[in-house]
């Protein structure tokens, strides 16, 4: 029996120490497909972000995505005769590499007036090189927060500039998102379409805004084939301060506990202490009876 016990114990211990990690292997690159994405975002101050995202995605397990860290990405402005290096950046732990070009930067454009941008990863011993190219038109968004017939209105106009600097309204219909800034993220108020270069939206009148009553409105064109991401924002004192004072209810931090707590605790404690008292009275009676017995014995 002792031998069996020993064998069982050894099996048990071996079983206990076998964890998933014991069988884990180093990730094999052949199981992964490299994903290299490139996009551009035009910000409210007309500066432009060029951003590449580089990850390895498992071919079999969609959830298994490993960001490629510290990969050097070079960004170029490509034109018909050649290309100009705009800057380089290394990917972060999340696999993002980005550079920001100021408004004053003059891009070289092609014969159609488009800006051609390219992100290049030149490769390492273990990873093949990657490159992505996008072609965009420089779109301008003007955002006005005005009162039209006493109604707070958001007016957006979208246009491009020709070679002489003349504004040309956006002819094609384009999706636009109107949102306001929140503490943690933006809150979308409306999703609509720019028509003939214009979009109008009536603002709700019950938004609280920040502590000074300011509301920051964003108009955003997202992931557009021809323009990329374009963001514009403006702040106006349109917030309505909520002065409604709520009646104080009981909280953990309020001065008095809820009534039910006092009631439950009182019932609980009174019940227990009543029993303690009952026990003490009975002990006293036992003692009294004992004394009587002692007296009777003495007699």
């Amino acid at each position, binding site marked *: *029996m002792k031998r069996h*016990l020993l064998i*069982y114990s050894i099996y*048990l211990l071996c079983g*206990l*120490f076998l*964890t998933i990690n014991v069988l884990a292997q180093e990730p094999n690159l052949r199981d992964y497909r490299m994903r290299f994405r490139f996009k551009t975002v035009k910000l409210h101050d007309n500066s432009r972000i060029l951003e590449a995202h580089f990850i390895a995605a498992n071919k079999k397990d969609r959830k298994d995505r490993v960001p490629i860290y510290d990969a050097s990405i070079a960004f170029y402005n490509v034109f018909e005769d050649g290309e100009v290096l705009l800057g380089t950046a290394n990917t972060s732990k999340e696999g993002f590499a980005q550079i920001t070009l100021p408004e004053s930067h003059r891009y070289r454009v092609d014969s159609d007036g488009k800006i051609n941008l390219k992100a290049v990863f030149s490769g390492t011993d273990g990873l093949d090189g990657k490159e992505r190219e996008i072609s965009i038109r420089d779109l301008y968004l003007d955002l006005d927060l005005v009162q039209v017939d006493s109604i707070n209105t958001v007016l957006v106009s979208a246009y491009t500039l020709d070679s002489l600097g003349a504004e040309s309204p956006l002819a094609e219909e384009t999706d636009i998102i109107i949102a306001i800034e929140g503490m943690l993220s933006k809150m979308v108020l409306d999703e609509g379409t720019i028509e003939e270069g214009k979009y109008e939206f009536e603002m709700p009148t019950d938004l609280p805004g920040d502590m000074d009553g300011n509301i920051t409105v964003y108009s955003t064109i997202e992931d557009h084939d021809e323009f990329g991401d374009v963001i514009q924002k403006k702040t106006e004192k349109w917030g309505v301060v909520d002065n409604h004072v709520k009646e104080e209810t*009981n909280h*953990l931090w*309020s001065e008095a*506990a*809820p009534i039910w*707590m*006092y009631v439950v*605790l009182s019932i*609980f*404690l009174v019940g*227990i202490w009543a*029993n*303690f008292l*009952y*026990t003490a009275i*009975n*002990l006293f*009676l*036992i*003692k*009294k*009876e*004992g*004394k009587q*017995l*002692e007296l009777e014995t003495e007699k």
Partner: protein
Amino acid sequence: MTDLDVRKKELAKEFLPMLLKSTKWSKIWTGVLVGFILWGLIALVLQIINGHGVTGMRDNVVWGIYIINFIFFVCLSYSGAFISGVLHFFNTPWKNSVSRIIEIVTVVSLIIGPVFILLCIGRLDRLHYLFLYPRIQSPITWDVIAIITDLIGCFIYLYLTFIPDFAILRDNSIGAPRWRKKLYKFLAIGYYDTPKQRKRLHSITRIMSAMIIALAIVAYTVLAWIFSLTLQPGWNSTIFAPYFIVAGLYSGVGVIIIIMYLIRKYLKLEHYIRKVHFIGAGVILLVISLLFGYFTFSEYFARWFSHKTTDANLLDTLFNTYFWEFIFANYIGVLVPIVILFFKRFRTIKSITFAAVIAVLGLWLNRYLIVVPTLETPYIPIQDTRPEFIHYSATWIEWALSFAGIAAFVLFFMLLIRLVPIIPMSGIINYEREKKKNSKPLAQQQLP
């Protein structure tokens, strides 16, 4: 002199030497325990003079092994109260062999446990504020109320169960010193085992035993709520209260088995504490270990599956930094007792005691893993993230005070079993009386 008086005299004669005589080993053992307590006192003085900087507790991990010992001892006490209450209330046939052990464990651990919470407090001089300005809505206040009420309840209950034995010793302590005789007379409060007195005592003990069960559950729950009502990862769980109750019972039954083994061996009580008692306790330990394993699995599985960032971070800490501790607490500490106790052939006195030791050690580590890794994985990281602020390791001061607590527990236990017999004499008499009462009609039937 009636048969009953003769029997009481016999029992007193059998058990009195255990109360009066000290062996060489018991004196050495007492010396060792006092040594540990003195070591702890030195550590306490250093902690009071230099502050909590001498411990491993810092801004992130504000609770260390003091709180773990507190939970461990208090849970031990609650489980003792629970088991003792159940044994008395249902008048379990074999309760005589273990009831006194359980009662003493209950009270002694409830005295030692709260001392550890005092060691955690940085400003002991403000302790009375807790009573002067209590916040009823705070679980800490509930716990203070619950522990004090439970302590008083346990003292009363323990005293009630001691009274008949004090009475026997008062009438039969021949050769005992005068102070001891006086003490027994005082504590026996004129109890002469008359039918009226017996009925009265039985009635209040029975009510008290039922109340002790309820009190233990309430106090256990409140202790668990101190953790689970916070939003900390690893603590904020709806099953924490029942999980604590099961864990407490697991450690309680484990400690009782260990003490049963030691008392049986060193006080030579093989006649009273027999294998059947170990098997009974072992089966209870098996059932509780299965329950505890189930609760542990549910607790960690839900956290793993929900995959919240903070829970994932906590599990990552548990499976990396605390890998071996986690394996011991939640695998070995549960599965080894289950394997030993599940198979009939393994159920020997020694193997059951071994299973109990593993269970108790596993449980202590389980408490450690509930407290420390959670505090090392907070929701909002603190600004100053020095490694010693994030990671906790107990200093010698904390270990000295912990061992002093264990030594005090053992010493108090030893002192109490020098005051009253570890096997309740009144329980034996009651058992024999019941046996006689039940066999009488049968004997009468057999008469022609």
